[in-house]
């Protein structure tokens, strides 16, 4: 399965991926309208320390502990893609307890959100990858 992979040597720490992510999942088709004057809640996290930086998003694990720990049965696996049914989520944070990568976080609506590789929004392909100016995030088969 194609996944998002990160090469920290190429990451500039520019945070553009966060903005592209927030835009991609906003439901709006105008980036300015989606982001202007908004506090963004991207589905990936940039870690930064000194000169090192990299983006962390869902790994779509073959052993998805978030799914197996979800008390609501809200997380499922569709052909390798780990997705959340936000209507079932009760915001208990069991997935946050379980995920070894720290890749889930609450949304503005106070239900869990995670990277779904833009397969469940209108874009179809990971927009963070398209927006990364230095190819530090790629979408490929490994």
């Amino acid at each position: 399965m194609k996944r998002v992979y990160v090469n920290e040597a190429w990451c500039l720490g520019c945070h553009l991926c966060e903005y592209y992510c927030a835009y991609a999942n906003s439901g709006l088709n105008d980036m300015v309208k989606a982001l202007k004057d908004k506090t963004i809640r991207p589905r990936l996290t940039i870690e930064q320390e000194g000169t090192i930086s990299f983006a962390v998003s869902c790994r779509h694990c073959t052993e998805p502990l978030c799914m197996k720990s979800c008390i609501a049965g809200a997380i499922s696996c569709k052909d390798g893609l780990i997705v959340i049914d936000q209507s079932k989520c009760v915001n208990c944070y069991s997935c946050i307890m379980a995920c070894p990568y720290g890749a889930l976080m609450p949304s503005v609506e106070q239900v869990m959100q995670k990277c779904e590789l833009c397969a469940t929004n209108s874009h179809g392909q990971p927009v963070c990858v398209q927006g990364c100016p230095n190819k530090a995030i790629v979408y490929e088969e490994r």
Partner: protein
Amino acid sequence: MHYLIIGNSIAAAAVIEGIRSQDQEGAITVVGEERQVCYARPLISYLLQGKTDEEKMCYRDQAFFDRNRVSLLSGTRACHLDAKEKTVTLDDGTSLGYDRLVLSTGSSPFIPPMQGLDLVKNRFTFLTLDDAHALSAAIRSDSRILILGAGLIGLKCAEGILDRVRSITVVDLAPRILASILDGQGSVHVQAHLQQKGLTFHLSDRVKEFTANEALLESGTIVGFDMLVVAVGVKPNTELAKEAGLMVNRGIVVDQSMRTSVKDIWAAGDCAEAPELVSGSNRVLPLLCNAYLQGETAGKDMAGKTEPFTQAIAMNAISFFGLHVITAGLYEGEEKLFTEEGSYKRLFIKDNRLIGYILIGKAVERAGIYTALIRNQTALDTIDFDLICRQPALMAFAKSVRQQQLGGSV
């Protein structure tokens, strides 16, 4: 091959998925005491709060059972297990044979003997959907609720109904709330939050005697109430196992493949007592994620693929009125405490390993990175320990490890 599953909650669903990952042919029968198909039990407090509904609470629907070709007998109780003849007798008198059996019978509320308890007419427990419906139908806006037990079940029940009743009083024998998952300071923190929301606590106290609508406490306090919820704890359902001669301590004793002491019988979930990672000893861990992982392990093993579940630890994620609490592991060894406004974190370190943590409020972010340190028994001298204490981050790992985490297949 006929696989028989007794119980129809989380562990049972995982057993089915485990079996079907290996064996598409064998027949599977599930005997479930409850009338519902397979629902997410921990959601009953959210149901009372109106944050979910019965349809959304469905954990595995009828289509799941159909797709996996599972014969589901719901509303049916297994009464007798004969391990020699390999048969289970149901409450309607029919007998089911099996080749491989798993007991995922769960747990039941523990009701300690208390003087005058029989006089209390409006008495409830809070474990099943039926319990939640019964409580929901009984409460009124002027009801005074008395909850026995300031643990996870009692306090989630309180959260579920607080807005719909006049008052809630909680009594517990322990000197602090959530004593099974929190330390003293953490308990005080969460208790203050709950009191601010309107709960009243009587701790280090117990009911000496009930009348129909009053509880006389050991301390001399008299608490008037309209409804009583008994939530002092749960006990594993081990009757079938005991009767059939399986080894039973607190729960049904199993190994890391969920095999019981008797051939062709497995056990998983709240009824099982399995090896716990950090202590190295057997524990009953009545937690949803362990029920799932144990069930999956049992299902695979029953179908011929042995993949021992070696990483079982205690862990809880729970919230009360917006305050999140995540805990894991054991609370022993060297302690490190980090507190700031709205955030409480206590880490427990022993022999160069993280063995437990308590996180409250903002500190819960990315908690799973800590959980993984415990489960993987990561040597702390191989990571940036100061950084990982400050915040759970992949940055704390060696670059080569990080490359595998973010650049490799996982």
